[in-house]
């Protein structure tokens, strides 16, 4: 956990309003799949860092990949960064995905929209450990789709779009049902609503979900990013430091 001026190795649009940002820096050596970094936006008027998941890690090149969607003012400013620019990064933060092979020997990655990125490095690691990786990616429209071919290198990929403009029309659960995918061990990240539906449909699934909340400190001190634990009276969990990845059943999605 440190702050570092990392540098932009490459930065390009990979889908509508979606950018892939590759950064180089010493911090990479500490990174693990599912963790996130807290990125300082290049604007004095924006004080809060932006939490972005680590999408890919290359220890050889000491680079990491972030994938983000331009949403508000901060990500708009990020998108202006040129190759070589310095980006102040605080990280790596949070606890990522456990990397043990799932007991079924098969992993189902379920990503929705801008929740897809953290699943990529996870999939690479599981695949490298001999786990069978299947991926379901849900997007709004064809224009929003990214990393389909990257995930295809790890195993079978199913894409859904809400408007049917690419892949299966509908939501991730439609693809899961249609292809009767194995939902014993799932790893998911995406809109709350998506994760709630998946949890509701497959109550016996084991696995992990990665959450998002607005953050202040990013390390557990300010209590901005709490979510409820499922156990009554167990109080809150902090997404930034207890998560962002939680075992299914631990917190209320």
């Amino acid at each position, binding site marked *: 956990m440190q702050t570092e001026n990392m540098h932009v190795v490459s930065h390009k649009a990979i889908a509508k309003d979606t950018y892939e940002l590759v950064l180089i820096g010493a911090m990479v050596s500490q990174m693990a799949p599912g963790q996130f970094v807290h990125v300082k936006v290049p604007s004095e008027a924006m*004080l809060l860092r932006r939490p972005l998941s680590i999408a890919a890690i290359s220890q050889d090149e000491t680079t990491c990949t972030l994938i983000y969607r331009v949403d508000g003012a901060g990500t708009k400013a990020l998108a202006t960064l040129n190759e070589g620019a310095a980006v102040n990064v605080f990280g790596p933060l949070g606890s990522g995905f456990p990397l043990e092979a799932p007991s079924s020997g098969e992993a189902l990655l379920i990503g929705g929209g801008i929740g897809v990125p953290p699943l990529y490095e996870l999939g690479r690691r599981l695949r490298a450990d001999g786990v069978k990786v299947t991926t379901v990616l849900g997007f709004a429209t064809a224009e929003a789709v990214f990393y389909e071919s990257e995930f295809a290198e790890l195993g079978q990929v199913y894409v859904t779009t809400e408007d049917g403009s690419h892949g299966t029309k509908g939501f991730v659960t439609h693809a899961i049902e249609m292809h009767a995918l194995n939902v014993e061990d799932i790893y998911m990240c995406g809109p709350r609503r998506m994760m709630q539906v998946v949890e509701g449909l497959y109550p016996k699934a084991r696995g992990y979900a990665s959450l998002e909340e607005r953050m202040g400190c990013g390390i557990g001190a*300010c209590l901005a990013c709490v*979510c409820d634990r499922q156990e009554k009276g167990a109080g809150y969990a902090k997404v930034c430091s207890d998560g962002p990845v939680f075992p299914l059943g631990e917190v209320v999605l």
Partner: protein
Amino acid sequence: MSRLHVELPGLSMKNPIMPASGCFGYGREYARLYDLSCLGAVAVKGTTEAQKDGNPTPRVAETSSGMLNAIGLQNPGVEAVAAEELPWLAAYDTPILVNISGSTMEEYETVARTLSNRSETSAIELNISCPNVKKGGMAFGQDPALAEELTARVKAVSRQPVYVKLSPNVADPAALALAVERGGADGLSLINTLVGMRLDWKTGAPILANGAGGMSGPAVKPVAIRITHNVRQVTNLPIIGMGGISSPEDVIEFIRAGADTVAVGTANFSDPFVCPTLIEQLPAYLDELGASHIHDLQGKGAALL
């Protein structure tokens, strides 16, 4: 004695830099980043009698050069703080300013009695200015008579010096300062957050689940400087200045305005190392100004002339 050393009631500070209440938890998280013993003091998260859940999320929003928060005083309650948090933090060589809150005068008394009896507590910071709780909080800080009474009652049960933390959401902050001075305050913390709100322009819904929240950060610094300066004109009480500090220039601006020491809140989120960095940077600024001690720069105010 070092040129940064600051000696205040209950707080013997190596330097004038402490993290502000609520922005630093009880120190555990930042202790993973640097040695807390370097800090002038630590102001811990506001504590209430019972454990408190706080507000629903989102609890923070960004504003131009500032932020809003509506944490709602989530805390584990006085017993857990006394049993688990203070002893842990006391292992570091830095005074502990224990921030307390309540929704009734009785609750404030109970919390103050319990925590000021702990050997780990160096001083009490009486928060009468939290905009994020429904009952108590800021209401005590907007009425001079209530503020005076509450201060007197907390002083009566407290074994440690009491700093009263004032609200900027009043017409006349100096009148509040005089009221709590009459109540027996040993010092003042200036300022808590300004009440603010942001709406999502697309939907019209407030960004904070709580609706409004407290604004902090550089955006509020001019308000904090003006209140510090105003209050320094009417009282000799020690002042812990805060509101938007992120650079050595800011620290000095508060000292110039009349603060004795400062606290740093929001800036910890932009730069988690901001406190040790400020401590490291200050001596060169004193050199530039030809000051042998930071208090050579202090604005004395009319009351001290």
